[in-house]
């Protein structure tokens, strides 16, 4: 059965490593924070100026002067720090953040990503996404494998305006866990109950299938 958003977030959370600073994008990526593996210490960076971001505040304790990049009220954990936007992006551009998780409309087999603009529609802007994808050494994309019409979003080449080039390292979709290699999308794992054939059918980009493909384990 295909993963729901929480399933995608849970699978990505398994990729977290002890000691990593992590930037989570808006949407599914935000959910990753709820499923940090036991025994692992990570710190979340919010590009509007937080390191060591904590969960939502208790009802009644929210502070208008403490929000995350999604403009949601948040809290600080012990050891947190606050800084301005230029230092925040210094951290990001300078590759001090070990992992960026963000959503996408399309990912191509060379690692290109499109997630900020659909021609003909209202363009809201790229926010920090272009800085994040151009800078991070380790980018995991959280997305649906296909769009509402069933068309693949895992492509040979992006059709939408790009956010960044050759930057995505891994993709977790509702169907599969993919790694981007020089030859295309290498299928690492299947969502529970999803067959290789289903994934193949939903993938327009070159899909590399080597040996037995295990199911994700939660």
């Amino acid at each position: 059965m295909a993963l729901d958003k929480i399933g995608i977030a849970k699978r990505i959370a398994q990729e977290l490593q002890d000691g990593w600073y992590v930037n989570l994008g808006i949407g599914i990526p935000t959910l990753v924070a709820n499923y940090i593996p036991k025994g692992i210490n990570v710190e979340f960076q919010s590009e509007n100026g937080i390191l060591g971001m904590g969960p939502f505040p208790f009802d009644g304790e929210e502070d208008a002067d403490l929000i995350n990049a999604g403009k949601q009220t948040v809290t600080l954990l012990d050891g947190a720090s606050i800084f301005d936007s230029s230092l925040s992006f210094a951290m990001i551009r300078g590759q001090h953040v070990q992992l960026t998780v963000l959503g996408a409309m399309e990912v191509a087999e060379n690692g290109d990503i499109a997630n900020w603009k659909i021609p003909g529609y209202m363009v809201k802007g790229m926010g920090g996404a272009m800085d994040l994808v151009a800078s991070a050494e380790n980018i995991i994309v959280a997305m649906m494998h296909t769009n509402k019409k069933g068309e693949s979003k895992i492509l040979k080449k992006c059709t939408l305006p790009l956010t960044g080039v050759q930057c995505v390292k891994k993709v977790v979709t509702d169907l599969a866990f993919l790694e981007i290699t020089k030859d295309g999308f290498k299928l690492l794992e299947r969502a529970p109950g999803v067959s290789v054939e289903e994934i193949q059918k939903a993938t327009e980009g070159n899909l590399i299938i080597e040996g037995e493909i295990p199911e994700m384990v939660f």
Partner: protein
Amino acid sequence: MINKTVKNVHEALTGVKDGMTLMLGGFGLCGIPENCISELVKLEVKNLTCISNNAGVDDFGLGLLLQKKQIKKMISSYVGENDEFERQMLSGELEVDLIPQGTLAERCRAAGAGIPAFFTPAGYGTEIAEGKETREYNEKMYVLEEALHADFSFIKAWKGDAAGNLIFKGTARNFNPMMAMAGKITVAEVEELVEVGKLNPNEIHTPGIFVQRIFQGKDYEKRIEQRTVRPKL
């Protein structure tokens, strides 16, 4: 000590004219110069170019200037959450220049720091880099971006003193310090204007040299855009 205090928001905005380029601090509705924005509405200045990470919501923040059609061009990284903005943009009334957030922050800092241009990886290979110089360093490609200046910068701080020193609170800091650096005239409104000597020199976020005018703001609404909470245990 050089005294930067002005009586009120009205005096603080002396010299703001039609067609000027303004920077406004804040991220979403957090840390925006509420008093200055209200005064800009009152002054009815027009054809403004506004540099701000976001464009407010329909009835708050920069949305108030959009409603009065005072803005000719917005330079931002993200402009959602605003129907009037969308209408003006789609109708072509409003010019919009979208800039990656980190590039926007760094371009403001660069202006304030006397750095006319710098290389950044953000936007390489995308339409953002079209027409811009690109260069390879250590097998990675970068785009040359230029400093971004303003005629006036409007800054919101938590505490300040007559010398113009500022301390921000939480994530209300965001773009305020860099924009303070980039304005020809930087106006700071503060929640609390304290006596000179009360702020610890070691804890000041924006040194007074970057601030030309400072005043005690009032009636802060500090609206929350996304009130997210968990139930009390």
